[in-house]
């Protein structure tokens, strides 16, 4: 599958490495070349410097041929705008978008994007952890011979 990832931060670079490992054809886009330092040392995929809300940039890096577009920059609005361009202008089938603001996330889900709000997901994980404390690993239990 041909995947374009916009934003090479922690999530973007980790995801790029994972997908590349799985054998996908991955292109990474970021506003600064400096961000590519987060990619694995032996990165084989493509990388481009440019702003993903600029349609000329999206055209140049071949978003029209992509099977999936994933926006994970720090800016909710940038993610939303680029993803909608990928979907409605370039006809990309899978358009995934990270949106921190949960209300905005819900809205764009209704508008047809595949959205994730790490705010809700993170809060849920923390709440789960608080509600279900891990069993303490004590010297007794570790060494007990019942």
């Amino acid at each position, binding site marked *: 599958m041909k995947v374009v990832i916009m934003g090479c931060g922690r999530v973007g670079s980790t995801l790029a490495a994972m997908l590349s490992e799985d054998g996908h054809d991955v292109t990474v886009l970021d506003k600064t070349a400096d961000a590519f330092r987060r990619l694995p040392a032996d990165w084989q995929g493509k990388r481009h410097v440019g702003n993903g809300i600029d*349609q000329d940039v999206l055209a140049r890096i071949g978003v029209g041929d992509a099977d999936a577009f994933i926006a994970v920059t720090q800016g909710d609005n940038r993610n939303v*705008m680029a993803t909608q361009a990928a979907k409605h202008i370039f006809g990309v089938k899978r358009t995934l978008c990270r949106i921190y603001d949960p209300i905005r996330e819900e*809205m764009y889900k209704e*508008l047809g994007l595949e959205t994730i709000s790490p705010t809700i997901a993170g809060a849920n994980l923390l709440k789960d952890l608080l509600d279900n404390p891990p069993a303490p690993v004590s010297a007794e239990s570790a060494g007990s011979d019942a």
Partner: protein
Amino acid sequence: MYVIVIGGGKVGYFLARELMQEMHEVLVIELDSVKCERIAEELGDIVLRGDGCEATTAELAGFGRADMVIAVTGDDEDNLVSCQLAKTKFSVPRTVARLNNPKNEKIFRLLGIDTTVSATAAILAQIEQELPTHQMIPLLKLKAGLELVGVKIPPDAKVIGKELKDLLLPHGTLLVLTVAKDGATRVPTGDSTLQPEDEVVAVTRPENEEALRLALTEP
């Protein structure tokens, strides 16, 4: 009318002032506290400090009863999201967005923003009118994707002397006015003829612009 302006920079400030003079109820939403203070000082208590892309701010601002939301920040992605929020969550009847990058017009239109305004495109169009080499100048965008354009008839154009009803113009194009070299204006009819250096004002579609230019200017 209740009009909400998003962005309290130069454009937002002057727009708010203009709307107030026309007796509209106006609210400006601006994130920066210094800009908020300036607007409050000069225009009164019409400013809300907050993010116009956030649903909670929108609720507080009364998007639900707004007749119009106009987003004029310096970032197209923010203007887009504010207008989409206004449309989809609050059913605001009319949304207007400022475009900083004229290229974004298509995506804004596809996503249902009612009107876009691009300062860059407006300035370019105005300068183009002053360039003598330009045979066709965009004058005004009309509704339903139509456009008003001006075409200057070059002295060697093959249309000169022909009756308008015999011209092959692109489908849906209408010649509405001719201005002769001496400034005489005429509403053209089927048997009117064009003279060298006439200026023709026409209604057409952007995709037919080039065909119209060729039809009227080719030697």
